[in-house]
């Protein structure tokens, strides 16, 4: 019953969202595309960060490679968008496997910093590539209308979320959770940890790369700074954590709520929205470190003591 209700709600939600371009204003549709792409990124990060417990700060590399795959194919070789997207995804998967192999051996801070370093290296390399337009970037051909991008982004989010749903109840997903909880024990139980981690990394690279490709074609402009933006990477993490990392709908919820709030604030002052974003991160980590899903679940029993309880657990 409960699962059925959730499923029905999700289907109705998707149906309503799909009709947004037919009645929504241009501003709403553009906001929607951004929110859907961020939700996809948060959801794809969820696979490696939420389920596997490897806090990657380098997922923006996949996003950037997807974008550059599309941009280079369309601008330098006049290939269609689909071909560019395939190239971008292929690049991202190759990158995930080749660099995942050594980097996924690191844990905790070291993994986080190594992936952060990879994002910086990629920015620096791409700014030196003639074919990628160096520092200046590339301007893509313009496709009129936001509707196709909206539907495309929505479809991508649905597929990503379905994949996460499948992961959460598959043998593969249980393996990832085992790695998150105790990697040594998982290995002893017969989980091929290296293979599982690489697969998880490659899987999230696919979705992030497609999101990057769609975004690049939509914005029609790409430069190294925005393609491999580390802030974007932190955004997807905070959205996933805010909603609840390691849950199916948490990252989507977190992405929608946070992009909604910062969009409303950005109407007033842009820098104010950024300050607010920072404050939300600080407050969320202090008061609800286990995310929105946990808040909803335990607030019912504990009431306002829930926040006190969280601080008491982690303070010194």
């Amino acid at each position, binding site marked *: 019953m409960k699962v059925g209700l959730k499923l029905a709600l999700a289907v109705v939600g998707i149906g309503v969202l799909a009709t947004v371009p037919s009645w929504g204003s241009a501003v709403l549709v553009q906001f929607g595309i951004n929110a859907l792409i961020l939700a996809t990124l948060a959801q794809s990060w969820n696979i490696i960060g939420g389920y596997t417990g490897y806090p990657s700060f380098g997922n923006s590399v996949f996003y950037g490679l997807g974008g550059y795959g599309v941009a280079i194919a369309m601008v330098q070789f006049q290939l269609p968008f689909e071909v560019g997207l395939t190239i971008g995804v292929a690049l991202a998967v190759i990158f995930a496997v080749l660099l995942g192999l050594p*980097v996924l051996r690191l844990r905790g801070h070291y993994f986080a*910093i*190594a992936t952060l*370093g990879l994002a910086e290296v990629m920015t620096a390399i791409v700014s030196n590539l003639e074919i990628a337009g160096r520092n200046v970037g590339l301007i893509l051909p313009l496709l009129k209308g936001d509707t196709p991008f909206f539907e495309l982004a929505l479809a991508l989010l649905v597929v990503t979320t379905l994949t996460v749903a499948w992961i959460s109840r598959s043998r593969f997903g249980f393996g990832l959770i085992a790695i998150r909880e105790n990697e040594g024990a998982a290995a002893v139980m017969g989980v091929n940890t290296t293979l599982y981690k690489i697969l998880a990394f490659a899987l999230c690279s696919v979705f992030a790369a497609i999101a990057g490709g769609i975004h690049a074609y939509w914005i029609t402009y790409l430069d190294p700074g925005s393609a491999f933006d580390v802030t974007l990477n932190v955004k997807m993490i905070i959205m996933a954590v805010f909603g609840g990392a390691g849950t199916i709908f948490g990252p989507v919820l977190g992405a929608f709520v946070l992009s909604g709030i910062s969009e409303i604030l950005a109407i007033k002052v842009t820098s104010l929205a950024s300050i607010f974003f920072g*404050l939300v991160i600080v407050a969320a980590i202090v008061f609800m470190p286990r995310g929105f899903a946990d808040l909803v679940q335990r607030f019912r029993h504990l009431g306002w003591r829930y926040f006190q309880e969280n601080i008491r*657990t982690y303070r010194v």
Partner: protein
Amino acid sequence: MQLLWQILINGVLLGGLYALMALGLVLVWGVLNIVNLAHGALIMLGAYACYYLFTGFGWDPFAALPLAMILLFCLGYLIQRYVLNLVIRAPMFNTLLITFGLEVVITYLAQVTFSADFRTVNPSYAGANFVWLGATVPLVPLLAFGVALGLTLALWLFLDHTRIGRAIRATAQNLTAARLYGVNPRQLYALTFGIGAALAGAAGTLYGVVSQINPYIGSGLTAKSFAIAIIGGLEKSIYVLVGGLFLGIVEALTALYIGPTYTDVVSFGILVLVLIVRPTGLLGRTA
């Protein structure tokens, strides 16, 4: 050969400043197990403190340095005491995110208060230099190098030879045992983070003298500090000198032989490579 000698001198002078930039990061990381993503933002604040003391009150940048350190110490103390202490025992990932939140808040508050314009600190002796063994030695970077070296050594002596320093090291090794010996971790953590912030303030002051500043330099400086910290290793604060000098020289050589736009490729490439091959740093013991 002459050119190489000049490049080496530039690299070494830059490396001293690099070491100081990463020193606070290493201290906080080693003692509190917090990877402080706001470290670069604190450096940026130090640079602005120097800028305003210089343009507003006519203070010499090197005279402004102690005051900038005190200001940043107070800020760091408050941040740790009233924010970070609340989450310090949470998983490492949470502390990482919260410092990123602080970085965003500091950066954009700085943008609102100081504006996004580029600023420079230009004392009258800014362009002064002298010739030593055939190479031109610029005066300001040399002074900055001296101060950075002095502060690094001072921290090392402080940690090794004072009561508080020993308490800090003891806490880093074993919190429970340190508590049993009467260490108050709330105070001590705040103190440590304050010292880390003060070192960032000092680095910022010197950075402001040798380079342009704006509110957004923070994240790049954090990334660079990571590279320095990882190359040297986190075991001893003095190792950071090795990391700083190494990176300074490598960057100078890269700029000469490969091209100035490739310095970031090389420095962050080395960061990733060292992490993969020797996560304990070049000087660290093998696990």
